[in-house]
């Protein structure tokens, strides 16, 4: 396996122990190929930020990692478990992988507390009291313990997204996937969500973040992945990436957004 990967720049490989390994991943939507030969590993406690123009396959890539989309070729391993059609594998990986969506996707018919305790109770079979205690400490962490008994519809966008993060964390995942978590937020709410994510990164959480927040990428990312047209174009440390990009496509993109 290693010799196969050595064709690619070293930067696609994590330095330490890898927790996510994608090898030669292709993904089609009908005749349209969304991902071309994706090779990337993510190490334990690493923060990888994926950027790129819209339609470049960033979201598709992280949605393949927890099987919200099924990849067509290649292999994806999460925490040593290969993603196959076996439902049990998929369930196991989803239990270890938290995901935060652009549109929050909180459950509107449940209170904030119930949103957070649902999965621990239903999937991990934790008792009600223990789950609620956990949930309250998570709400403390994201800074909105006073909203516990409210419904998502009563909260602002930023608060909803923080609840969504707490909901994912309640499953004590080993990896967190963020799919443009701040794209649906008003500017003044972006910061409160990013602050939570920064704290999470400092705490040693393994994260893959699809985002357009270059400031976040610069400050928090261990590596930045640039994707375009379904391909990984360039991977590097933030300093390297933002100050000295190698590929023309990357330079063009950065010149457009910075």
């Amino acid at each position, binding site marked *: 396996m290693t010799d196969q990967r050595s064709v690619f720049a070293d930067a696609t490989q994590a330095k330490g122990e890898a927790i996510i390994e994608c090898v030669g991943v292709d993904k089609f939507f009908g005749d349209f190929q969304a991902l071309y030969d994706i090779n990337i590993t993510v190490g334990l406690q690493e923060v990888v930020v994926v950027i790129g123009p819209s339609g470049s396959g960033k979201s598709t890539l992280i949605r393949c990692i927890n099987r919200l989309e099924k990849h067509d070729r290649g292999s994806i391993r999460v925490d040593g478990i290969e993603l196959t059609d076996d439902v049990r594998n998929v369930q196991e990986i*989803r239990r270890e992988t938290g995901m935060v*969506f652009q549109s929050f*996707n909180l459950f509107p018919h449940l209170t904030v507390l119930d949103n957070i305790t649902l999965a621990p109770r239903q999937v991990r079979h934790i008792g009600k009291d223990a789950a609620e205690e956990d949930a309250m400490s998570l709400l403390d962490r994201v800074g909105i313990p006073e909203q516990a*008994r409210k419904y998502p519809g009563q909260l602002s966008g930023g608060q909803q997204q923080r609840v*969504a993060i707490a909901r994912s964390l309640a499953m004590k995942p080993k990896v967190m996937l963020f799919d443009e978590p701040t794209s649906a937020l008003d500017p003044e709410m972006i910061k409160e969500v990013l602050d939570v994510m920064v704290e999470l990164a400092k705490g040693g959480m393994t994260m893959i973040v699809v985002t357009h927040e270059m400031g976040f990428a610069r400050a928090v990312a261990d590596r930045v992945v640039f994707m375009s047209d379904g391909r990984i174009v360039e991977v590097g440390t933030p300093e390297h990436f933002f100050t000295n990009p190698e590929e023309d496509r990357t330079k063009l993109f950065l010149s457009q957004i910075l």
Partner: protein
Amino acid sequence: MSDRKVIEVGDDSAAAGRPVEVRLGAWAWAKKNLFSTWYDALLTLTLGSLFVAFGWTLIRFLFTSDFEILRVNLALLMLGEFPRDQLWRPAVALILIAVLLGLMAGMGSASARDTAEQTGLPYQRSRPLAVLRRFWPVLVFVLVVLILTETVAPWLVAVSVFVAGVGSFPLGRALPGGVRKRGWLILIVIIAAIFLVLVGGGVGWDGWGGLHLNLFLTVAGLLLAFPLGLMLALGRRSTLPALRAMSVTYIEFIRGVPLITLLLLGQFVIGFFLPAGFRPGNVTRILIAITLFEAAYIAEVVRGGLQSVPSGQVEASQALGLAPWKTMRRIVLPQALRNTIPAMVGQFISLFKDTTLVIVVNMIDILGASQAANAQGSFLAQGLHRVTLPFVALAFWVGSYVMSREARRLEHKLGVGVR
């Protein structure tokens, strides 16, 4: 409305830029809204005179008609041929059910209070007057019935039902939260049991009739059809081709057949499918036909609800690791069913009215009773349908109107469309 100021024309607070509600005098109002142009005036006069004519006819009808036929046949219209020496059974059942419904309402009220306390959402305990506004058609109908009665017993029953319902409300409200959570289902089961044992026990439901039969067929039909319809809807969305094909075939077949045909089929065909010697009574066969029929429609309503839940909800649930059936049970169904309330109530109302079709299989429901009354020797061929049919219509209107109003209220409470 509350922060608006009502002022008389000429008040100068209008100049202060506050929203102002101008209250016109009656004459000025009429001039503005009814007679502003010549064709407005013409329309007002035409419709006005029609309205007056209709009102006059209605009053004449009420004061000149002989309601003897209703008075004599009241029990027939309400209960069909239920043995007259057994009438205490429905009376006692009615009172017990009132107790349980009072408990339920109390429990519901307490739950709403608790939710409001926790979430900080506004909550207002409904006042007696508001309750009256919700249920006034029922009250009108009960009063009409009571006025038509010739004995004191129905009055006693009505008063007991009222006292039982109102009296048990605070009891339900005082129940602790834990009991309340499971109490609903238990109470529904007890109501069904009371009904079957007390009312059915003496007579057997083939002896039922009148409005009682219409109500029973509606409620029982719905309770039985709902789970079946739910399963059909899920089957139709299943990934298993065989299950999906079966559901689609069933739904499309049943929806292509009129209920009246199914009722007749029930009479002649259901027996063919059942083991020899087991011959269900008439009402049982009607209930089977209604259940099979309604299930297909409910399935389609539920399917619409399932489609209304955004795919992000399923994805979020899957991403959390919930198994598919738990995603369905905890995330999709609660939201889907909430979204189906308007369509579901429409379905319930149309079933309520469709229960009159049992007349074709020789059951005497309230409509059948009205026909039967007109065939009695003393009332034959006197055109008294004009007295009985409005009464029947009133009964159905009351049921349908209250149902649709309550549904709108429930919809509002659950926040359909405002989320």
